[in-house]
């Protein structure tokens, strides 16, 4: 095993240790969750972080494509904005 191999294994272990910690905390929190939305939010959050870490460790992520990653963030936030605006419009429909 080379030094690089060892470092990679440690990096993977560290990453999954972090993900495992998140999962453990999420599971513990689920016990205290009081609404279905809370459960959904926890699961969405856990899935997002684990997917992100897994994609990075699998080598699918390209460090040098900064603009693509920034665009991804902007797209996600724009989608959130549209959803919140639509929800607000649905909750308070405009008058005739």
């Amino acid at each position: 095993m080379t030094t690089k191999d060892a470092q990679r294994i440690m990096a993977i272990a560290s990453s999954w240790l972090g993900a495992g910690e998140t999962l453990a905390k999420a599971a513990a929190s689920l016990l205290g969750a009081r609404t279905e939305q809370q459960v959904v939010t926890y699961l969405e959050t856990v899935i997002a972080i684990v997917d992100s870490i897994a994609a990075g460790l699998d080598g699918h992520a390209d460090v040098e494509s900064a603009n693509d990653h920034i665009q991804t963030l902007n797209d996600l936030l724009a989608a959130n904005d549209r959803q919140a605006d639509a929800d607000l419009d649905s909750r308070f429909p405009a008058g005739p």
Partner: protein
Amino acid sequence: MPEFRRFPRAVAPHILLTAALVAVYALVLSSACSRSQRTDTIHATFVAVNGARDGFAVWDKNHQHAIMESARSREEGRDALARYREAQRPAIVEGFVVAYQTLAAAATASDDPSLKGAVAAAMHVIDAVKALTGGAP
């Protein structure tokens, strides 16, 4: 319900702590300056920033939902959403922009300052997100 409105603030620290842990591990494990260690540091830091970005996006979605649900009128909701989007969120987005750009620069360079700058930018944006979401390790 108060519990629901507080909920996104309870989730964010878990995400960010994970991302921060990965970044810190990367920094500690790969503080030397060999090429492979440099690559590993950049990669691990990049994964941490991506994790923080995706976690922040989920928090943002739920935070906006909570703002919408707590509004008592359409105008109040629009104002509250605008305040969040224009006054609080831009600093976080800018932090991610700087982190990604410095990481990209470090990936194409071989000097220590670029690597340290990239890791510092990553930690800065993670800290900024923690501050916004009220998260604490």
